[in-house]
């Protein structure tokens, strides 16, 4: 009897230990890939190459595939001399990770994005693309097993994307790759959809949970249940982050069905000043009717990059909140290019054990035309009548975007004082007098 009780307690501890180890692996993989970004930023090619496993592979755009750490080091170093020369810029913002650690904690895959600020020989560029990478746990040390960067866009700084698109370089003639490109495609004005290593987080298969015996009636059971809860809350936070980051990746590629599948029948969506859309079917209409056909379109980019999430999971693990920002890269050959800066204060909830978006609420901070910049031109907030379909409900909040000031209330108290931030001080100057604004509109 006693042995059976101890067996059950140990089975629960085994599951908790593996859960926490997989959380630690998430952290290690974040460190690995973010370090890759920091190293290449400064031309630290040997340090970047040392992040790879012995038999790893590396493929950047249409470079072809390089195998093994020495070859990878040589391929990365094609960018320039060690440490970069004065005036060379190679900044990689490595963001929006979706990391999937295998159930046995021995391998992992991850999707990331890079926003790149680049310069060589006095010529400045913007660039953006997606990673689909693999990692291996080599005796407790995580290493990159394969790195594959898919270039979405490279453009001349002055001309912007579409007008200033620069094609990817092909395989190097100086250092030919070990194998040709694994996928042949072109960056803007062409479009390409790098396959996702993971299924839709709501409709796809859910991670398997180990079958555990009931927690026995024992003096230690309470401590073990508390540990299980803490582990689950960490997993809940990661799940909400995955949900929001997936939203961004799906919007990027106009995958409207996958976007709407992140919502349920009683979810709501409210973006800018367009009003409230009720339920996942209306989310699909909002996207498909309002924003264009399904799937990535030639000569168009609509990146909605999801950054800086602060996710707060409730004590019972059934609901959560998230503050995020979207960094928007938009435009096409038929619509003007723009930069967008958008905030989210979202609600998530667990339905039958699966995290879904309950309320997506996205007030805009600033939108500007690429050709002008935010000091010269600011696109006003969208309104309910600005494009079809009409919303189900009026906007929940009326505000003006930049150059006016609006601060969506923070869902969380100050992490140090524990107190909520006060409302903005009108004397600071940027809060528009909405009454005066309404009169001006009449």
């Amino acid at each position, binding site marked *: 009897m*006693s*042995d059976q009780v*101890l067996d059950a307690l*140990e089975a629960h*501890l085994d599951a908790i230990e593996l859960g*926490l180890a997989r959380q*630690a692996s998430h*952290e*290690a993989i974040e*460190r*690995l890939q*973010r*370090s890759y970004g*920091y*190293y290449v930023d400064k031309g630290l090619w040997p*340090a970047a190459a040392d992040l790879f496993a012995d038999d790893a592979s590396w493929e950047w755009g249409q470079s072809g595939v390089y195998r093994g750490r020495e070859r990878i080091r040589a391929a990365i170093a094609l960018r320039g001399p060690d*440490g*970069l020369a004065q*005036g*060379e*810029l190679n*900044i990689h*913002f*490595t963001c929006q990770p979706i990391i999937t650690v295998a159930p046995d904690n021995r391998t992992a895959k991850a999707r990331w994005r890079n*926003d790149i*600020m680049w310069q060589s020989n006095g*010529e400045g560029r913007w660039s953006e693309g997606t990673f689909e990478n693999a990692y291996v746990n080599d005796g407790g040390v995580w290493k990159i097993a394969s790195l594959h960067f898919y270039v979405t866009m490279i453009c001349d*700084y002055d001309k912007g994307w579409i007008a200033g698109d620069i094609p990817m370089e092909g395989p190097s003639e100086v250092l030919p790759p070990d194998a040709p490109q694994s996928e042949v495609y072109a960056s803007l004005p062409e479009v390409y959809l790098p396959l996702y290593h993971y299924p839709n987080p709501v409709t796809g298969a859910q991670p398997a949970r180990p079958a555990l015996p009931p927690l026995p009636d024992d003096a*230690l059971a309470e401590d073990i249940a508390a*540990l299980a809860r803490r*582990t689950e809350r*960490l997993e809940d936070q990661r799940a909400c982050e995955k949900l929001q980051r997936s939203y961004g990746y799906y919007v990027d590629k106009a995958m409207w069905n996958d976007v709407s599948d992140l919502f349920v029948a009683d979810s709501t969506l409210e973006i800018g000043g367009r009003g409230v859309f009720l339920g996942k079917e209306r989310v699909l209409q909002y996207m498909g009717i309002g924003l264009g056909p399904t799937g990535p379109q030639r000569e168009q980019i609509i990146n909605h990059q999801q950054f*800086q999430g*602060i996710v707060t999971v409730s004590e019972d693990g059934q609901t959560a909140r998230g*503050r995020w920002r979207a*960094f928007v890269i938009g435009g096409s050959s038929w619509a003007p290019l723009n*930069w967008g*800066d958008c905030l989210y204060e979202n609600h998530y909830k667990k339905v039958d054990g699966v995290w879904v978006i309950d309320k997506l609420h996205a007030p805009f*901070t*600033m939108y500007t035309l690429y050709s002008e910049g*935010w*000091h*010269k031109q600011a696109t006003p907030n969208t309104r309910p009548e600005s494009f079809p379909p009409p919303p189900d409900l009026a906007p929940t909040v009326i505000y003006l975007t*930049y*150059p*006016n*000031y609006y*601060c969506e209330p*923070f869902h969380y108290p*100050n*992490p*140090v004082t524990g107190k909520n*931030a006060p*409302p*903005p*001080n*009108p004397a*600071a*100057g*940027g809060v528009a007098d909405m009454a005066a604004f309404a009169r001006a509109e009449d």
Partner: protein
Amino acid sequence: MSAERRRQIEQRIARLQAEAERREDYQAIIRLQRAYGFYIDKGYWREASNLFAEDATFEHGVDGVYAGRERIHRAIVLLAGGNPGPGLPFGQLHEHFQLQPVITLSEDGTTAQGRWHQLSMTGQYGEHAEWGEGVYENAYRKEAGVWKIAALRFYPNFVAPYEGGWATLQPVDGDWRSPALADFPPDRPSATAYQPFPAIFAPPFHYPHPVTGEEVVR
């Protein structure tokens, strides 16, 4: 036999409790720095300075070291243009994206360090607009169970005009301390002298290489 097994289970629970706390610490530190960014974006200077420990330090570029929460508060306000907030004047954009954290928790779990990447969009409507890029190497400390910023060290790499971008930047000649802090001198000068882009400077890494364990320097 059973008593021995039970004792091992108790030890294992204690070990896993410490492990869970480290995972929670990692998330709390990331939350702290991301919250700092969201406050700075919207002119919530007091909320931002309240994230610092009482005896914390703040160091921006080559502007020198500001010590203590109140001095830090003043430096943050001045660097942002002087408006007391909370809020921003009409037409000011002050977005500071907090990206790419590498967080290293100490063995005893009471201190940590973090490297972050900042992308900024700043400017004044009708006047000017800039892109900015730089790296933080910050220190954090847990006081009575609450993580605080113990030292903020930001290394701006450039602030470039929207028109023409970073290609227009010329090598910095001489003193490039922030004019906004000219009348509010630091407690001590910066220990690290460096030049921003187009010079190449790699802010020192607080952590060894994740695979080789060796120090990484440019």
